[in-house]
């Protein structure tokens, strides 16, 4: 298999060694790790670049510098490990997929790059300026972000407290961030992106890994800081900033792109430095339980790659955008269609990428704060025939949970989120959670408020304000005192 004609794939060969990787279309260069200044002369007139280097034998800052000098944004240049690549089932497949990921890179902005001074001592760091390495960090699209409505999903999930809200606007502190990507997949509106790990890039890489291999493959998400170790034949690594970002939606996506198995691997045996091991573990367990409940093989979702991937891919209809904001519901329904169908009952699991909202009519005042905050429009309201209703569409709910802390009647248990996958609820469409009559103004006939709201106000005021409440129930704001 050859590489895309507009991609240069450069492989380092250490002096005296025989080349272990001889991929079609790739260029093997002596001592590229030690002399990255050779990049420019081998990557002229191409659009994309892929490098295969020996771990711990190159200075990332120097490689990034030479990438820039050759006209490439280094954040869009995949750097593959020589040993891992040569040990892969097919180096050609790995390199072609890396080229596809490079081609899907959409560029980075100045805000999306963070300097990090290398920790290990080098001759340069002792004698002079230790060139910083640059890592891709997330950015927030404030046009898409709904923090102004009260959403703070990024604040809630960030393990380093890099996000805060000020004046209804998300404030991101690059200096604090250790890019793990959890905010990217937790954002319910897709307003946060990391330029080096966009859904387009991941999808492009997986599609080539799946289509270029003659046999079904397993896709293993691996942490950029870790090392996957020896894998059984048939597994291919897809690098992400931290496998804590691989929600169940991301974990299941490869199955909908034709992979036979999928996995999320912890970065080290000692555990994640950011303490995010549990996130990937939850996603794995949920995905296994979902598949099992659907009558499919839950064993195709793994937490290790010791054993070969499943011999056959699931017969499941491909999705247009399995990594998208609404990829969770669509994925579950696609898998349900391939399995036992939607009537399997509900699966309650804290790794579920979708949720179901429950409202207690005895506590809810229909103030609609939850509707204002809901970032995806899953919660809505409907008014008509003298009635006001709070509605919910499970197919739009990403279980972000922003509605719960935003409820003024939270302490009375007015609203609850169940991280629950219920295929029947996903196909049921919008339904009413709670509705009450709307009081009408005696003077103009206009709407005053739902009876639930007035009842709550009455309860808070107490009996001594009975006359006031009665008056409030008779006239709307405009007609009071008129």
């Amino acid at each position, binding site marked *: 298999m050859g590489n895309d004609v507009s991609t240069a794939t450069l492989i380092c060969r250490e002096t005296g060694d025989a080349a272990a990787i001889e991929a079609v279309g790739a260029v093997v260069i002596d001592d590229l790790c030690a002399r990255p200044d050779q990049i420019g002369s081998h990557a002229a007139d191409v659009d994309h670049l892929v490098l295969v280097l020996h771990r711990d034998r190159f200075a990332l800052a120097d490689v990034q510098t030479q990438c820039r000098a050759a006209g490439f944004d280094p954040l869009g240049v995949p750097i593959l490990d020589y040993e891992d690549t040569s040990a892969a089932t097919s180096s050609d497949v790995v390199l072609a997929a890396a080229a596809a990921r490079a081609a899907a890179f959409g560029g980075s902005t100045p805000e999306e790059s*963070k300097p990090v001074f290398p920790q290990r001592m080098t001759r340069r760091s002792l004698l002079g300026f230790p*060139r*910083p390495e640059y890592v891709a960090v997330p950015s927030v699209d404030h046009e898409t972000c709904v923090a102004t409505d009260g959403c703070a999903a990024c604040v809630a999930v960030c393990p380093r407290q890099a996000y805060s809200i000020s004046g209804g606007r998300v404030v991101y502190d690059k200096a604090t961030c250790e890019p793990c990507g959890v905010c990217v997949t937790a954002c319910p509106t897709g307003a946060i992106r990391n330029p080096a790990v966009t859904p387009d890039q991941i999808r492009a890489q997986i599609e080539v890994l799946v289509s270029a291999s003659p046999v079904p493959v397993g896709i293993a998400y691996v942490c950029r800081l870790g090392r996957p170790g020896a894998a059984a034949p048939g597994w291919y690594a897809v690098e992400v900033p931290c496998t804590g970002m691989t929600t169940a939606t991301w974990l299941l996506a490869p199955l909908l792109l034709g992979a036979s198995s999928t996995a999320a691997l912890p970065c080290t045996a000692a555990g994640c430095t950011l303490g995010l091991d549990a996130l990937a573990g939850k996603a794995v367990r949920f995905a296994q339980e979902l598949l099992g409940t659907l009558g499919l093989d839950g064993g195709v979702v793994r937490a290790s790659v010791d054993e070969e991937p499943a011999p056959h891919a699931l017969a499941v209809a491909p999705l247009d955008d399995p990594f998208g904001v609404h990829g969770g519901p669509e994925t579950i329904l696609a898998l349900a269609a391939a399995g036992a169908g939607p009537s399997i009952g509900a699966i309650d699991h804290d790794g579920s990428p979708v949720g179901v909202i429950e409202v207690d009519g005895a506590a809810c005042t229909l103030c609609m704060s939850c509707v204002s905050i809901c970032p995806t429009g899953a919660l809505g309201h409907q008014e008509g025939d003298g009635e006001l209703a709070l509605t919910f569409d499970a197919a739009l709910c990403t279980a972000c949970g922003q509605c719960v802390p935003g409820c003024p009647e939270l302490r009375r248990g007015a609203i609850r989120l169940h991280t629950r996958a219920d295929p029947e609820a996903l196909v049921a469409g919008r339904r009413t959670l709670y509705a009450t009559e709307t009081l009408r103004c005696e003077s103009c006939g206009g709407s005053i408020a739902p009876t639930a709201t007035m009842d709550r106000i009455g309860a808070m005021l107490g009996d001594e304000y009975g006359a006031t409440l009665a008056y409030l129930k008779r006239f709307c704001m405009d007609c009071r005192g008129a």
Partner: protein
Amino acid sequence: MTTESWVEVAQLRRGLYRFLGGAFQSPNEERMEALFAAAGYLDTMGIEAFPYYLQWNALLAALEELPEDASLDGEYIRLFASGVERTLCPPTEAFYRGGAEGGDAARVTADVQRHTLSLGLSTTGAAEAPDHISSELEVMSALCAREATGWTSGVTADVEAAMRDQHRFLLAHPAVWLPWFAARVRDATGGEGVYGALVDFCHGFVVHDVAYLEATRAHLWGTT
């Protein structure tokens, strides 16, 4: 020259701020010649070690594409100097921070002027406002020069103070309003031409410099 030592990096940053300060002034023939010469020199200083090299390269390409006898006067006046009412992209901080953003134009301008004077600088030309982008970039250039002197003389306290002052000034002034100014210039130019490329580079450079100063101060002194 390369970016092998701290002093060289400080000198590079000083030169880039100086270059940008000049580039946002009226483009007379003498100034343009000086800018071309400065660009050629700065390009040899190891700038490719930093992410803004890609925007720098685009700026050099835009400058090289200028015809031999071309003048930027018309475009400069259209964008930056057509009078208060008609200026498409006012290059002064108070414009962006005096109104809807809730700031205080007089306070902002006075603070920039205080920094300018404290460094022994003064604004030149009757028309140049104290809070003009060129003035603010010159302040940064002077602070980088102080840092370079500190590195050369080996007085760590001077280096630390200079970098602290750079960080504070950036966060108090150019880093706040440059994104709005840059967005206006991009809108007005379609991101094309010398000024489209210039504002892209300036934005990228300042954004990087804030992060660079934070990383460097944390690395050297554990300062956040």
